[in-house]
């Protein structure tokens, strides 16, 4: 084989077939991101098959009701019993459902509204942009948890209301991100080139600008999902969690047992660890995505 042939072959080997696949390749080779994927996949499986995995129901009293000295972990109850004699393991398993639901719903909510607002202000500019972005600035000026607390007290304490409240707090993050991204893309050379070919405005936005502006949003969505889970847990911990009693929400479990941390550590450690692991998993995925999608990291 001649040198030229070898070079051609090498070039071919280096050419993946599409941009998405290229990014996926980099993502797959990112060990930390893969750990995140495994963690979150496990969590999803646990959530889906909760009834099969959990030995008991979430409200089922299976042991001695002893609020001052709940039974610790044993071979029968891996994570011990809580103050009402319920199996902590079963509750943590069912809790995965809630946390994933909360993360997904509130981010979807925030992303959809943030997307529309960001796209409107990025595309139209002028007073539309001024009104939208100043409103977003005001929302960002209030600490997220405080804003969420305010919204919960306004909307009520149901699980749905809490998810919406947390979702609302994430709107400005997405709106600002998309607007900035659109502005950057709008000034790019390929948009100018497309304009020079007579591509009309709406098509410019839908086909050229938006798809290119989306990547940072996807990354951010993963990271915001992690924050949303923490925020809902935080709201629960502050006593603003879902009003439904007995709901196995991780944050609520922490809050209920905070006073027993010295006597029954297991009641705090297991739900706490569940929160940490799921948030860590999402963050690892988010960082991995950022690295694989970011054009600057492209070789």
């Amino acid at each position, binding site marked *: 084989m001649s040198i030229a042939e070898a070079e051609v072959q090498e070039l071919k080997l280096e050419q993946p077939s599409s941009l998405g696949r290229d990014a996926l390749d980099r993502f797959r080779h990112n060990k930390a991101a893969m750990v995140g994927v495994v963690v979150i996949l496990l969590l999803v499986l646990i959530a889906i098959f909760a009834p099969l995995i959990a030995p008991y129901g979430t409200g089922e009293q299976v042991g001695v009701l002893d609020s001052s000295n709940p039974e610790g972990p044993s071979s029968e109850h891996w994570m011990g019993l809580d103050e009402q004699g319920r199996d902590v393991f079963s509750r943590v398993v069912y809790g995965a459902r809630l946390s994933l639901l909360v993360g997904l719903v509130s981010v979807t909510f925030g992303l959809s509204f943030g997307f529309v607002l960001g796209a409107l202000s990025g595309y139209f500019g002028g007073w539309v942009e001024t009104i939208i972005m100043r409103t977003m600035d005001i929302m960002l000026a209030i600490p997220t948890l405080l804003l969420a607390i305010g919204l919960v007290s306004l909307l009520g304490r149901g699980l749905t209301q809490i998810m919406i409240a947390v979702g609302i707090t994430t709107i400005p993050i997405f709106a600002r991100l998309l607007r900035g991204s659109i502005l950057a893309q709008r000034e790019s050379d390929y948009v100018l080139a497309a304009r020079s070919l007579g*591509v009309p405005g709406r098509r410019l936005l839908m086909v050229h600008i938006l798809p290119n502006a989306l990547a940072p949003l996807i990354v951010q969505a993963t990271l915001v999902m992690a924050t949303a889970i923490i925020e809902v847990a935080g709201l629960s911990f502050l006593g603003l969690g879902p009003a439904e009693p007995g709901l196995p929400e991780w944050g609520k479990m922490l809050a209920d047992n905070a006073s027993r941390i010295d006597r029954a550590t297991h009641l705090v450690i297991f739900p706490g660890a569940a929160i940490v692991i799921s948030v860590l998993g999402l963050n690892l995925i988010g960082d991995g995505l950022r690295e694989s999608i970011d054009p600057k990291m492209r070789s």
Partner: protein
Amino acid sequence: MAPLLSVRDLAVQFKTRKSTIRAVNGISFDLNAGETLGIVGESGCGKSVSALAMLGILPKAGRVTRGEVLFEDVDLLKLPDSQLRQIRGNDVAMIFQDPMTSLNPILTVGRQITEALRKHLDMSKSKANEEAVALLDRVGIPAAKDRIGDYPHQFSGGMRQRVMIAMAISCRPKILIADEPTTALDVTIQAQILEVLKQLVAEENMALILITHDLGVVAGTCGRTNVMYAGRFVESAPTRKLFAKPRHPYTLGLLKSVPRLDAARKEKLQPIGGTPLSMTSEIEGCAFAPRCIYATEESRTKTPELRRIDSDDHLVACWNPVQEQDMPRIEIVAARDEGVAG
């Protein structure tokens, strides 16, 4: 016969919060079918802005303050955007400087080439795809059929510029504006790209406006060259004449500052002293006067207009044009002349 494109007294300003930048200060030129016009000048002299203004795609802050751009006797500047869009890409198309960023990274090149075809010529998807393959083939991309589904990052810089050319010529425009098409490319690739452009212009009887800061590029490509300084044309002549007998001191300065392989070892390059004027204030007199060794009292007070010198097709805007004895040595000109003819 009226020219294909006639630009009359075009002026463009950029308004910023602090000041107004007078990017283009009244340029005029005619362009006939099949003609190749070079516009040469240093960075920031208004070359690209003029082109963007003609197509109505100036950045937001930019505004055409006066003038006409008559394309087939229709003033493009007065057309509503919807009608102008019909002309962009269809009758007048443009190629940009940086092929690395001028293609949409997430669409296949096929999709980007067919975009204009489908919009302007109303082609079906399969027909447009066939046409795109033919176009890629035409601009010299090997195995065009297999590459149509590839993404821009899978092409090298030179290949991407070929793709850009394919996009621009897809609807067989009557005028092709190439804005520094070779600046971002290696010298060997530059020659190839220029060759592609020259061939297309000859085959399609397309008019070409080649914007560049590189005198070598216009020398081999353009029939006529306009030299631009501070938003005005300072000299306009057939390329051959311009290189042989530059009459404007700025043109002479540009020619002298090009490094030459055939120059004597000790001969030093002669850069043009000073820096261009800030374009924020109204310029009194000739804009080049502060950097010009030929400047007279008149140069500093009265703005010179383009006027005929030597012959009908040689125009210069100067009160004290360069005289014969200061012109470049003949043997250099001869070498250049060959390039022009070829």
